[in-house]
């Protein structure tokens, strides 16, 4: 998958906005939205929130987890544990990037939040690398990882699968003169 596809999926998440226009309920294939009344918060998907924000028709309310203290706690927890801790949102990285790029004036302490989220991401990716490394070196047959988000999985997916395929090719060619030595094509 392309990271932009993952971002596209992340845009379906719901976020609260405060519109400055009024509109009746709109009926879309994916669900109903609205009604919109100026000054009253309403839940909308992120793609609509960003579009309205760019047209200066709303103010975005940052999600609850996007707060300096909460993120600091999560970061400390992540650094202590060896396994992956539960994440604030399954799309935390994408949402942070989208909201901070387009609506940073509505989010207090935006720079610190960006740094904290990046720290959490770095810690998790480091754990993922470690775990993949030990998986390969110990030649495990299967592994189970909890609390991974789609973006993190996507980051390692192609590399990990290609590596495993290569290792399989190398291992299967070790058997001298075996008929199964012909490497299978991997995509």
């Amino acid at each position, binding site marked *: 998958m392309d990271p932009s596809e993952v971002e596209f999926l992340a845009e379906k998440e719901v976020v609260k906005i405060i519109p400055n226009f009024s509109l009746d309920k709109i009926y879309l294939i994916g669900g109903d939205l609205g009604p919109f009344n100026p000054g009253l918060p309403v839940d909308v998907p992120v793609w609509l929130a960003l579009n309205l924000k760019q*047209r200066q028709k709303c103010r975005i309310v940052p999600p609850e987890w996007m707060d300096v203290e909460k993120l600091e706690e999560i970061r400390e927890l992540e650094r202590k544990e060896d396994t992956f801790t539960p994440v604030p949102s399954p799309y935390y990285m994408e949402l942070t990037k989208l909201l901070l790029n387009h609506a*940073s004036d509505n989010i*207090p302490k935006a720079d610190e939040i960006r740094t904290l989220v990046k720290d959490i991401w770095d810690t998790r990716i480091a754990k993922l690398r470690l775990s993949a490394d030990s998986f390969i070196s110990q030649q495990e047959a299967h592994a189970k990882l909890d609390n991974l988000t789609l973006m993190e999985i996507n980051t390692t997916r192609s590399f990990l699968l290609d590596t495993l395929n290569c290792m399989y090719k190398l291992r299967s060619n070790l058997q001298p003169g075996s008929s199964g030595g012909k490497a299978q094509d991997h995509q």
Partner: protein
Amino acid sequence: MFITDIRKEFYDVVVNQRVALLVSSDIDALCACKILQALFHCDQVQYTLVPVTGWQDLGTAFLEHKEQFRCFVLINCGANVDLLETLQPEEDSIFFICDTHRPVDVVNVYNDTQVKLMIKQDDDLGVPSYDDIFRDEEEEGGDDSGNESDGGSEPSGKRRRYDEGEVERRIERQRAMREWEARSDPKLLNMCVYMYVCVQAAMVIFELAWVLTKDTKDMLWWAIIGLTDQWVHDKITHMKYVTDIATLQRHVSRHNHRNEDEDNSLSIDCMRISFEYDLRLALYQHWSLFESICNSSYTSCNFKLWSMHGQKKLQEFLADMGLPLKQVKQKFNSMDMSVKENLREVIEESSNKYGMKDIRIQTFGVHFGFKNHFLASDVVHATAALLESTEKDDSPGDNFIKALDCLSRSNLERLHGGIDLAKKKLMAIQQTVASCICTNLILSQGPFLYCYLLEGTPDVKLFSKPMALTLLCQYLLKMFVYGILRCSCLSLLPLIIAAPMDVEKRTVIVLGIPPESETSDKKNFFGRAFEKAAEGTSSRTLHDHFDTSIIELKMEDRTKFLDALITLLS
């Protein structure tokens, strides 16, 4: 007719239609266009943007688009000429004109249906009342000469052409620097002789955005650039500049106040506009201080940097401030912090000793991100350089788009490219001015000063463009007046400059600027003068530019045109 409620009469009308935006090629128009584009994006209005460089361009663009569009928005063009007669539109076309050029043509004012002017009526336009003008249409001739007091009551009718004697007398009075305002009824007559500029287009459109409460800091920044453009190119008086700065300062504080809070400080990437009382040195933060002092008109005029004496004075000045030469010749960003700390105050103090009382000027600067700090005048110079770039494959349309791009925050490389071009342009201007003064190319022709740039002059291609040539003309006149003549009567003369425009077609571009003085009201009468002279000698001229004091002329007709002008103005 004048629009009173810009939201109801303009915006609500265009928001549901497809609009053609015809934008003139100057920076104020670019800024107004940017703000309007941002508003259109918010409301998803379909528009077509057409850059126009002159009346012919406007006509062609109109012909191309008149089938598809009913609404035309003209920015910085079209107010000072009878639009309906020039363009011959259909009955249902509407024109919204946001133009800084004055005087406004009376037909445009009194047309109720098709022409709407986005101009505040309380601007001192001096538009005579309807009865005064449209009363006697059959009346021809009619001597409206020197009868100032009756000027309003017995008007010259709808015609805007005056007999030769009338024009000559008027221009003669201007030449002796009598204030026209002393006249009791300058109105219609004054209107047609003088060209000046008024509220910038960018400010009008910004106020529209403000009324719609859709104004952002980006739009405010563009409005600031529009005003600074008028000041850099010397189109407005100092008083007007200061008044407009005060208006913009109110908007800036409103925006800053709204967003800054102790607990919730804004991200560093957000745009911050600040009021600065900064030095009048062009591009000094992107250049070395020494280069900037050498290439800014204010300082180089006062030091007379074309002479050895002037260079020595500059060295003295730097020594007086205690700035080491090595520091001063470095890029500004790499100067020592200790030197940079009180730089502005130190320079102001020293420059007072050298007779430069106004080295600091009120302006605005913008910060975004950690590295990016620009003053409004920096952006104006960069955009002007991009707009008139004379590189090989740049068409005017391309230049327009590039200049428009460099105004947005996301195109910083283009802005930096523009700054580099602007540096080259300023250096070229400085060298040309120095050589003109040293080789005495400025001649007094009687009623005006005249300078002709020969074809072999280095960088003469740069000066085939109106804005660059205007800058050169102004620097030249300032240099001449402050440098050479202190108190002689020659210092109250206007300056006409001619430079080769197109070598194959053998044309020159001619422009005139009013005399340089502290109390000058920047009103320019050369438009009419040029027209008259051209008619009189049947020279082949092209009065294409929106600013009537800039024309194109065939090289061969230059001498007889000049002679006619001399006779006209003396």
